[in-house]
Structures are given as C-alpha cells and as structure tokens.
C-alpha cells in the first residue's frame, strides 16, 4: 500500500477542478476555454491514475504526511478509480456541450463553469476520501453546488425544484453526520477502515449504520425517497441535468457501498435485503412512471429513478461470488448509465432548443435532427440494457448473479425493467419518425451540441464490446473481494 507513484495524480485530480473553478470565477472572460481545458487535462490525469491502479492495486496518500488515526487518508482502489473515470468522462462531455448551450446567455457560461467545476471537485474528493467526515464535507459541497446549478435555469419550476433539492440534500447530510458522530463515539476514529476494524455489533452501531443508510438512500432518490428528483432534474438546464443524473445520484451510492463494505459486516444480511428490495421497487416504479410521462425531460428523469434502482439491487446478494459479479455489473452500470443519461439529457436539450419538449411535438425530428435522435436512441439502448451496449454487459452481470443465487424475483425485475425501458425509449423514437400535424419553424441547433451528444451515446455502444479492461480495473485492489461474506 505505497502511494508514492499515485500521489501526484491523486492530488492533481483534486486540485485541477478547484483551480479551474477559481480561474473561471475570477476571470469570467476565460470561461469559454477554462472548463473544457480543465476537463481534458482531468481526463488525462484520471486515465493515468486508472492505469496506475490497474497495474499496482490500491494507491493511498496521507494528506500532510499525517497517518491514519489523526490525519486524513486518501485512497484510490478500483472502485474509486472507476468513479473518477466516470466523473472525468462526463465532465468533459458536459463542458464541451455547455460551451455551446450557454453561448447565448448574457452571463455566458460564467456561472455554469465555476459551479460545475466545484461540483466535479467535490465528487473527486468524495471518491478518494477514506475518512467519514471528509465524506460529509464533500457531500455538502456537492449538494450546494448542484442546487445552485439547478437554479440557474431561473424558471419558477427550476427554482422550486432547486429549493426542494437543497432542503432534502442538506437534511440528508445532517442525518449522515449524526450517524458519523455515533460511529466516532463508538470507535474513536473517522477513518472508514479503522471504524470497520474497531466497531462491534450492537444497538448503537446499528443505529449509526441505519442513519447513514437512510441518508444515502434519500440522496440517491431510491424509491420511495425519490420525490425530489424528477422536478429538480427535469427543470434544470440540460447540461446540469446531465451532471445530476449521471454523477450526483451515484455519489451517495458510493458512500453507502463503502460503508456497507467496510464498516459493519453484521449489518449486511438484513440491511442488504431491505436495500435490494427498495432497488427492485425503484426499477419497477421508476419505469412505469417514465412510461406515463409526456414531457421528455420528466421521462428521462424518471428513467434515472429506475436505473438507480438497478445500482442498489446488488446489496441483496449474500454469497461472495454472486455479490462480486453483481457489484462489478453495478459499477459498470454507473459508468454506462452516466454516459447514456448524459447523452439523453443532451439530446432532449437539443430538441428543446429546436422547439418542443413533449412527445407529441416530435414532429419528424428524425429527419431534422438526425444526430440528436440517433444519440437518444443509442443511449436508450444502453438504458434498456439491450445488446450491443455497455448497459447490456452491466445487466448481464447482475442477471448472472441473480440466477447464480437463485433469486428469481430479482431476475424477473431486471428483465421486466429492461422491457419497460425499451418501451419508454421507443415511445419517444416512434413519433419522431412521423409527420406532425403542425410543422413549426425550427430554431437552429449548434452542430457541436449534436455531435457531443452523439459521441457520448456512441461511447456507450463501444462499452458493450470493450468492457473487459474496465471490469478488471473495477477489481483492482479487490474492493469487493475480501468483504463480501457476512462473516469473514
């Protein structure tokens, strides 16, 4: 566990977006290139970091040279690396898209770039944190910057959506903090692994884990705690919706997963069954709600509720082999879904700009915005888990695990969820082929916005073919390897 090789990379991944945010904030005229330049360099750094993790297992870094009980530890294993990679990829796409999207606004991308960079910084810090209190701070950074970004749309719906989201996320963070306070009281440390090593099962420990779990389920909008998500995600500006759906909801999944893996092994069996059941319910509920939506962005937002459900299903698995397979699938789905949702929100953003945001208004969009519609369709294939796509690979792994453990209900949910998803995706694609009753005068959509959406969508298809290196990366440092059996 030597961090010598990786340390500069970890620090760079933390500081780059902060530096980008600071520059963009201080010098608003530079925002047209600061965002994208930062994102490009960040992606390069993260790819190198992934290479280092893939080759050498876990990397760690003690901030300021202080060791674990006192100082703050930063750790990057395969799970962290995969999350960092997802974040870097989405941030590059969003930066490229945001450049054109906010072009006509009076403030330009001035507000968007620093806030989104701050959000990315918060995410990166979260994914390398090995410390429960650090996690609290990063969650707050995330929540505040995300709420501010949602409000940027300025419409009454966006403002109320942002307000509700802010209240929910701050309240959830406080619940989390109460759990952390209990854990600190019980173990005298905040380092996740040390907490896990010192914690003994008992009512207080259970309460702490329960509080943290509830807080994270609320932040990830897991059914039935999803009420705040659709209004916030559907009314934000398109690039912001992309960031929220692709990344922010997964941050809390990550926290829950870390705590679940490292903190209280005894809690796994019971706690896991409940979380897995909620995941299944979320898949079914989110998909059926998405089916009922007429407004495109709401449809995509409910689809996020459903897809997040898949990510929580693996908590239900108890055997080491099945859980390992399912987690690999779920983490892979984090990446694939992040890209797919980014592409979908971008396509919908393009369609809105073009004119119209309801299914009934998709008047021959296929012919007028072919790249946008292709992006939506291709991303939809991943969301539906149809081959050939990364989503298929991910859902195959979850399905394989479910069959392996003989969990027929879970298998059925995975399959039915996929079918429902393909139906709501094609509900959008079908009308786009037909001629509308009232053809409107379209507004021009910048080419860059079409191409970025398409490129991101295409990436999800490639992930369906070349996923093995990434699946191996997720395993680096064995994040799931040693902590899966209920009793070790």
């Amino acid at each position, binding site marked *: 566990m030597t961090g010598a090789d990786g340390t500069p990379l970890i620090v760079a991944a933390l500081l780059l977006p902060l530096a980008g945010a600071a520059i963009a904030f201080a010098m608003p005229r530079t925002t047209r290139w600061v965002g994208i330049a930062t994102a490009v360099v960040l992606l390069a750094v993260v790819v190198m970091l992934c290479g280092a993790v893939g080759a050498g297992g876990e990397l760690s870094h003690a901030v300021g040279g202080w060791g674990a009980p006192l100082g703050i530890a930063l750790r990057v294993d395969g799970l962290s690396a995969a999350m960092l990679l997802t974040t870097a990829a989405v941030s590059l796409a969003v930066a490229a898209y945001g450049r054109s999207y906010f072009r006509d606004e009076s403030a330009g991308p001035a507000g968007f770039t620093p806030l989104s960079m701050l959000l990315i910084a918060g995410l990166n810090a979260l994914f390398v944190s090995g410390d429960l209190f650090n996690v609290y701070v990063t969650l*707050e950074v995330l929540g505040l910057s995300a709420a501010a970004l949602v409000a940027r749309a300025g419409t009454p719906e966006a*403002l*109320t959506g942002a307000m509700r989201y802010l*209240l929910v996320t701050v309240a959830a963070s406080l619940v989390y*903090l109460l759990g952390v306070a209990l854990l*600190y*009281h019980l173990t005298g440390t905040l380092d996740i692994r040390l907490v896990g090593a010192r914690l003994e099962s008992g009512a207080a420990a259970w309460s702490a884990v329960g509080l943290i779990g509830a807080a994270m389920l609320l932040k990830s909008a897991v059914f039935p705690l999803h009420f705040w998500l659709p209004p916030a995600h559907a009314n934000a500006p398109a690039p912001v919706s992309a960031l929220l759906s692709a990344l922010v909801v997964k941050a809390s999944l990550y926290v829950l997963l870390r705590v679940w893996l490292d903190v209280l092994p005894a809690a796994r069996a019971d706690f896991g069954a409940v979380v897995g059941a909620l995941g299944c319910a979320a898949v079914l509920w989110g998909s059926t709600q998405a089916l009922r939506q007429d407004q495109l962005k709401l449809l995509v937002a409910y689809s996020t509720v459903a897809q997040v459900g898949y990510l929580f299903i693996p908590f239900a698995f108890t055997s080491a082999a099945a859980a390992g397979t399912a987690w690999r699938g779920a983490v892979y789905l984090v990446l694939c879904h992040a890209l797919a949702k980014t592409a979908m929100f971008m396509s919908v953003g393009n369609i809105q700009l073009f004119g119209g945001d309801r299914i009934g208004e998709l008047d021959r969009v296929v012919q007028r915005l072919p790249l946008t519609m292709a992006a939506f369709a291709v991303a939809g294939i991943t969301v539906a888990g149809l081959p050939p796509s990364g989503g298929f690979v991910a859902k195959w792994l979850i399905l394989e695990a479910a069959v392996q453990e003989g969990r027929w209900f879970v298998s059925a949910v995975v399959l039915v969820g996929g079918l429902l998803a393909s139906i709501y995706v094609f509900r959008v694609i079908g009308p786009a082929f037909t001629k509308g009753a009232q053809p409107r005068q379209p507004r021009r959509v910048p080419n860059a916005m079409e191409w970025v959406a398409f490129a991101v969508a295409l990436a999800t298809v490639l992930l369906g073919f070349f996923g093995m290196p990434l699946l191996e990366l997720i395993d680096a440092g064995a994040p799931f390897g040693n902590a899966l059996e209920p009793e070790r």
Partner: protein
Amino acid sequence: MTGAELYALTGIALFVIGLHGLIRYAHLMRKILALNVTGAGVFLVVAALAERGQDGTPDPVPQALVITGIVVAVAATGLALVLMLRVASATGRAELPDPRSE
C-alpha cells in the same frame, strides 16, 4: 445520567424536532429554520459524545468537526435564503408546490 448524556439526548431531541418542522411546515423560512435546528442538534450530539482524557481535557477532533459543520451550515443557509427569495419573487409565495401536482 451524566451531563454529557443529557446533552446528547437534548441534541437528539433537537434533531427530531428540526426534522419534524422541516416536513411539517410549508413556509420556506420555517423549513430553513427547522434545518438549522436539526443541525444544532447534530452538533450538540457530536460535542457531547466527545471523550475526555484522564485530566478532563476534551478530545479536539469533535470540536473541529463542529466548527467545520457550522461553517457548512452557514453556507447552506445562505444559499437556501437566496433561493427562497428567488422562489418568492418568481412564484409570489415562499412555499413549495405539492410534488404530486407537478
């Protein structure tokens, strides 16, 4: 019951009262205040559960946590107040619509 336990229980009581207020009241100002009550409860718990050394000096870590937490809470409250004002000026009411009606 020791003083520390009393503080901790008071903190938890504040936490619950705050959450109740957050859910119960529609006006955004009340919600934001309730959130601050919740926060105060959590900070009280953190401080109360701090261990004391042999000589009665408190553990510095929880103090540091509470200070950081208060800073974060101030930032969140500030943002929430700004948002509330904008919601009020955009919709004419400092309340959130029923999510089911959207």
